[in-house]
């Protein structure tokens, strides 16, 4: 997987305050969740990626361009959706998107045509002709998303794209992000505090804390439990089935009425379970491999950082 973003030992100081403290980060294609507690340096990192602030030291390349020297080239290829409730005062929705397209060098007529297309894609109907000051928070959120993608960027940086959206709109937004990544090959950095969003769409996760990247791994690996197990719901007596499993060399424990837990989640364990169930004439209703929750991973990483600091 080619690296779209490569940062090496990036340090950014604001006066005496060190916002980024030697960030090493490599991000490839797909959707990457950028997580971190408040004040972790996420916003500063985004500004560095966009070339909006000069780094104190370190090197970085985004889409092959140097973050220090080729900021304009980076911003031409990147779509950024800010977290702040920002808008262009006095313009209608369609005018805002058209302006965003024009600033990214699309010709005037094409900017208007594409603006309408993108607003359709983002689910903004006739409201597009209203001034943005009259929009609800959710509408402005969708409008900022439309402005971020109108120029067909290669990389999308989305800062809290689902905050302020109702559950239905949130799902639609995540679905759009998924379409852009899976169908159109856009790389996406999803900066959010909403961990279910990350679990729903992200391919990998980077956790930033104290101005450093503490963890960077595929989501699949992060969710693997350190003590793998399989939870089974059975239609018959769980205890007798558990005894049968133990007799065949599996480790097992009854954890409730018709529910039991088998330690290990390898293919062999799964095959054995189904074979034994067939022999014992036990109907398995559910087989759920256990996973670590992203919350646990996140909290553990942040705690480790605090522990290291203290």
């Amino acid at each position, binding site marked *: 997987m080619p690296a779209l973003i490569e940062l090496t030992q990036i340090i950014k100081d604001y006066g005496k305050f060190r916002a980024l403290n030697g960030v090493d980060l490599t991000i490839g294609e797909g959707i990457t969740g950028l997580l971190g507690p408040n004040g972790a340096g996420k916003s500063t990192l985004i500004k560095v990626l966009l070339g909006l602030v000069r780094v104190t030291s370190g090197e970085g390349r985004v889409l092959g361009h140097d973050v220090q020297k080729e900021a304009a080239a980076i911003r031409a290829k990147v779509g950024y959706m800010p977290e702040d409730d920002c808008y*262009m005062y006095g313009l209608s929705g369609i005018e805002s998107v058209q302006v965003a397209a024009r600033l990214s060098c699309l010709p005037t007529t094409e900017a208007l045509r594409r603006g309408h297309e993108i607003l359709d894609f983002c689910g903004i109907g006739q409201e597009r002709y209203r001034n943005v000051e009259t929009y609800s928070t959710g509408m402005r959120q969708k409008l900022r998303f439309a402005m971020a993608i109108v120029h067909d960027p290669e990389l999308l940086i989305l800062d809290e794209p689902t905050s302020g959206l109702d559950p239905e709109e949130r799902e639609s937004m995540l679905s759009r992000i998924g*379409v852009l990544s899976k169908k159109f090959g856009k790389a996406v950095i999803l900066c959010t505090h909403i961990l279910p969003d990350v679990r729903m769409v992200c391919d990998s996760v980077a956790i930033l804390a104290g101005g450093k990247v503490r963890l960077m791994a595929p989501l699949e690996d992060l969710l693997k439990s350190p003590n793998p197990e399989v939870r089974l719901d059975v239609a018959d007596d769980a205890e007798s089935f558990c005894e049968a499993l133990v007799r065949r060399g599996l480790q097992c424990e009854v954890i409730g009425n018709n529910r039991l837990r088998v330690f290990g989640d390898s293919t062999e364990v799964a095959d054995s379970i189904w074979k034994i169930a067939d022999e014992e004439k036990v109907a398995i209703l559910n087989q759920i491999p256990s996973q670590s929750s992203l919350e646990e991973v996140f909290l553990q990483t942040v705690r480790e950082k605090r522990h290291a600091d203290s």
Partner: protein
Amino acid sequence: MPIHNLGYREWDGERESGNSRWSVIAGIGIRRAWQSSWLRRIAFVVWGPPLVYGIVIFLFEQVLTGNASMNPRMFREIVNMFLPAESVQAVLLVFENLDTATQQELLTVARPLVWKAVLLQLQRSQAIGMVIVVGLVAPALISQDVRSRAFLLYFSRPMTRLQYIIGKCMTIGFFLFLTGTLPQLLLYLFAVLLSPDASVIAYTWDLPLRVLVASTAMIVPTTLLALMLSSLTIESRFATFGWFFIWIFGLAAFLMMRRLDGDTSELVLRLSFLFLLFSDMSTAILGIPTTVSHVETQFVFAAVLSMVCFTVIFRRVSAPLRA
């Protein structure tokens, strides 16, 4: 999915060069400002003085072409109402006592001088309207962007801060051109059309250029000053207040200092009121004889004022990105 919704489509068309991004910013500002009905009214009203001075030019040309219904003395008295410039009055006084043949010989001197004086006077008479126009347009230009936190939307695009500031300046510049420079250029054109033949262009060709330079010398510091005030606040009404305060306070300071007779130097007196500063600069650029000294210092003052304002604007625009 609605029938018109094509879903997402990739863009593979040509992109334009990024050099005209400032024009997008200017376009937004102009469109937004033009929504103000007050601005439209003022922009209409400031076209009144050019009509009056068009009549002056017409009468002047009547005198020069020897029209029986208009004698030079009557013209001088009419002109006196509109052109208090002493040098022009003196020229006309001499001019009316000359015989027709000599008058014709001196036309190449008298005509440009009167035209320049008319253009300068037109510029002065438009000043109040232009101050109001800037007061209506400028205060919201940057303050509203700060308030609505639009900077990130602008600067996450491949646009520089300089392009942004130029775009904002061009918004004000457009309205100042529309209400100040354009009427002057059209008045010059009107004067040429009223002249007996096209030969007048040969000795007045520099007038449109002088008008453009004089306008630029006024527009640049004015625009930057107004934009600086806008960048200093998120409440555009404070910027509006600051803008009008500068002009009213300047006038009051000028009147007070003039009453103090001799205690204040001529230069300080003229620098205190921006109207006089720009008027003196225009007089010098148009090439009208004047008794005002220290004009060079006034140019330097305007340049320094512009640079300070630009620096403040640049820092204020950069501040939200650094935070």
